[in-house]
């Protein structure tokens, strides 16, 4: 009985104090008050859910061609029209979204985790470790990344997952540089010194004190990386290094649509719209996240 007493008492003492990481908790509350960010998030979730369910909910089969139909403008049967081979465009966009979103999120996640870790370690440890790590980044920068990806494809064969990894492996370089410069200025701060004097390990200092304070620019850069990764995939696919027909992606649909935009404008407009809406949502969500994590900018 007496054991449980201090717990009861202390919950009374600090009734409104939350357990655990209150930065994220507070950020969540602030984010949920940001209307733009919330609508961006909802749109993105909707896109992802549709992408996941596509095989079951798609109105038509994406492979079946119907040359009699040819390119048709939007109609009741084909809401977004059909392409030159008579395939339903809505179905194509839904299947394309699976690839594009996966490339965008997975490749960026790969880039984010490698880049942030790499940059944080280089910036925090400094000295020779920093020099070696950053020279490696410079070397990879100097390497023409197309050759890098072509090499990967030649060695390991063409594979969608490998494509994700290859793009991620190229995109983390800038992330690492941004993180490193952030960490370098943060590690001079007195609160980091205070953490050292408390006896925190370097890993804990990076995790608890450095990374949360460096997130702003990282989040902004991430929201910029996702679209550029999606376009990179389109470019690679166009060169025959990425996705191959009949599989498709938004990037591919847009580049085909661009070829026929004078005769069949809807083939460009609708895939373009899908990509644009995704990018806008990402930007709203990213800006909202950045503001939510910046406790100083809170508007209360």
């Amino acid at each position, binding site marked *: 009985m007496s054991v449980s007493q*201090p*717990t009861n*008492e*202390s*919950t009374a*003492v*600090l009734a*409104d*104090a*939350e*357990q655990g*990481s*209150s*930065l994220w908790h*507070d950020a969540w509350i602030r984010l949920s008050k940001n209307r733009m960010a919330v609508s961006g998030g909802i749109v993105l979730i909707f896109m992802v859910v549709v992408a996941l369910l596509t095989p079951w909910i798609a109105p038509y089969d994406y492979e079946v061609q119907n040359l009699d139909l040819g390119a048709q403008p939007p109609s009741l049967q084909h809401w977004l029209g059909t392409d030159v081979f008579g395939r339903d465009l809505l179905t194509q966009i839904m299947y394309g979204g699976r690839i594009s979103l996966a490339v965008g999120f997975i490749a960026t996640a790969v880039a984010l985790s490698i880049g942030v870790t790499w940059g944080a370690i280089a910036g925090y440890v400094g000295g020779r470790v920093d020099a070696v790590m950053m020279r490696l980044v410079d070397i990879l920068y100097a390497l023409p990344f197309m050759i890098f990806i072509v090499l990967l494809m030649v060695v390991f064969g063409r594979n969608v997952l490998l494509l994700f990894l290859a793009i991620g492996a190229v995109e983390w370089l800038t992330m690492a540089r941004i993180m490193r410069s952030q960490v370098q200025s943060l590690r001079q*701060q*007195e*609160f980091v*010194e*205070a*953490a*050292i*004097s*408390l*006896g*925190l390990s370097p890993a*804990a200092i990076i995790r*608890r*004190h450095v990374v*949360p*304070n460096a997130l702003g620019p990282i989040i902004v850069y991430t929201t910029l990386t996702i679209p550029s990764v999606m376009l990179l995939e389109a470019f690679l696919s166009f060169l025959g290094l990425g996705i191959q027909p009949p599989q498709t992606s938004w990037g591919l649909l847009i580049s085909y649509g661009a070829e026929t935009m004078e005769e069949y404008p809807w083939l460009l407009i609708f895939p373009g719209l899908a990509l644009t809406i995704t990018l806008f949502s990402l930007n709203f969500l990213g800006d909202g996240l950045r503001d939510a*994590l910046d*406790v*100083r900018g809170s*508007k209360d």
Partner: protein
Amino acid sequence: MSLLSVDNLQVSFTTRNGTHQAVKGVSFTVEPKQITAIIGESGSGKSVSCYAMLGLIPMPPGKIDGGTAIFDGKDLLSLSEQELRAIRGRDIAMIFQDPMTCLNPYMTIGDQLIEPLLIHKNMNISAAKARAIELLEEVGIRSPASTFNSYPHEFSGGMRQRVMIAMALINEPKLLIADEPTTALDVTIQAQILKLIADLQKKHDIGVLFISHDLAVVADIADQIVVMEQGEVVERGEPETLFRTPSHPYTRKLLDAIPSGQRVSGQIAPDPLIRAHNVRTWFYPDGTDEPVKAVDGVSLDIHRGEVLGLVGESGSGKSTLGRSLLRLAPITEGEVMFDGTDVTGLKGSTLKTFRRRMQMIFQDPFASLNPRMTVYDTLAEPLLLHAICDRKSLDHHIAKLMDDVGLARGFIRKYPHEFSGGQRQRIAIGRALATKPEFIVADEPVSALDVTIQAQILELLQALGREYGLTMLFVSHDMAVIRHIADRIVVMYHGKLVEEGTAQEIFETPKQGYTQSLLASIPGTALGR
């Protein structure tokens, strides 16, 4: 007739949180050939008043709601920006707190000095140059001719402030506004600059408006003192009457807050907790083989329960010494015994156990707290890290810490930026005490705070020192603060200890010339301390 006569000046700032009245009907005058001082703490509106009448506050969000400021027969508040510009720098000159940010780092001192002559007086270059060199000599710069072609970074803070003063005087202004001109300077330099301003004021017959937060600084030089609190003038008068018979409670509070008196030493055990022997901390700046000898062979003992005051000016290595004792700065040579164990070579978990026993309080409470951690998280971190309590009793421990440092428990979920400087320093003290340390290094813990807050924090540190049985190394450049809190004092100069003794010995019979000059520079002799 008054040189400047400000009447019922009102200034407000509109932000998204509403309108804040920074200056609420302030009136004061500056007489020719006199020094008028405006005293107040941060947020009192003292700087805003002066900046507003010169059109130097951003508008919006700032707005002048009313009042007049008659200078030379003209109302400054009704002049156009163009007319004001003609007055600023010619009839009214300013010097600021931080001379480095006010000088263009890419222009030589000389070019910056003669610029106003060329603009306002249409002088030719050689005449302007002669005048500039003459002035540099007058403000006490030793080789004015070579200084003329130097860049600002080649000078120390004190020299830069002299250059700023020369620049302010070059157009022979009628009024000089000095905004905290000595706050960023060492105490011996501060004394020199104050004397220079007083001398030049007499020689050139100008009126001076001196803005400061420090009563002691203006006590010796001001003819008139205006005390401001929260946008209002609460008291004014000549220094002697103001200090002897302050009528407003706020003035009394300011006077009481000036640290005075000497600490009554408590129980000091004879055995030292810290024994540093011949400590050297040298830094090798990038690309040089010549070391910066920040700490160069220091030996000292700190006894259990003692507060050792460490005094020195900026660059003396006093902060580095404090950090070296705590293993926060790399020790090049020597040993630091903590309770009989040499801590210089410790690593890993052994070092962590010692970290628990020694903590640090930093100067700047705005930089020493992680801006993204709530008070709760900041205080919970050391408690959990060193397993001082388990998660169940965590709230209880944090509540106790909050009580100890005098913070309301309701603040627990707030972030550092929502607190004032004094409150932040309380959080930082709470964090340092969380591990129940035996030894604390306090590095200028009150230097960034307003004087009334400073008194509160000093009192808190003393009370907690007794309660927790702390041994403390108190680092400061402020002799008055040191005298207030320290049992024993060591004086540091260029990386070495130059004098050591009890507080009484140091203050009454200083042996070294350097210590004597430090003592002579303490401002506020007019306060009769």
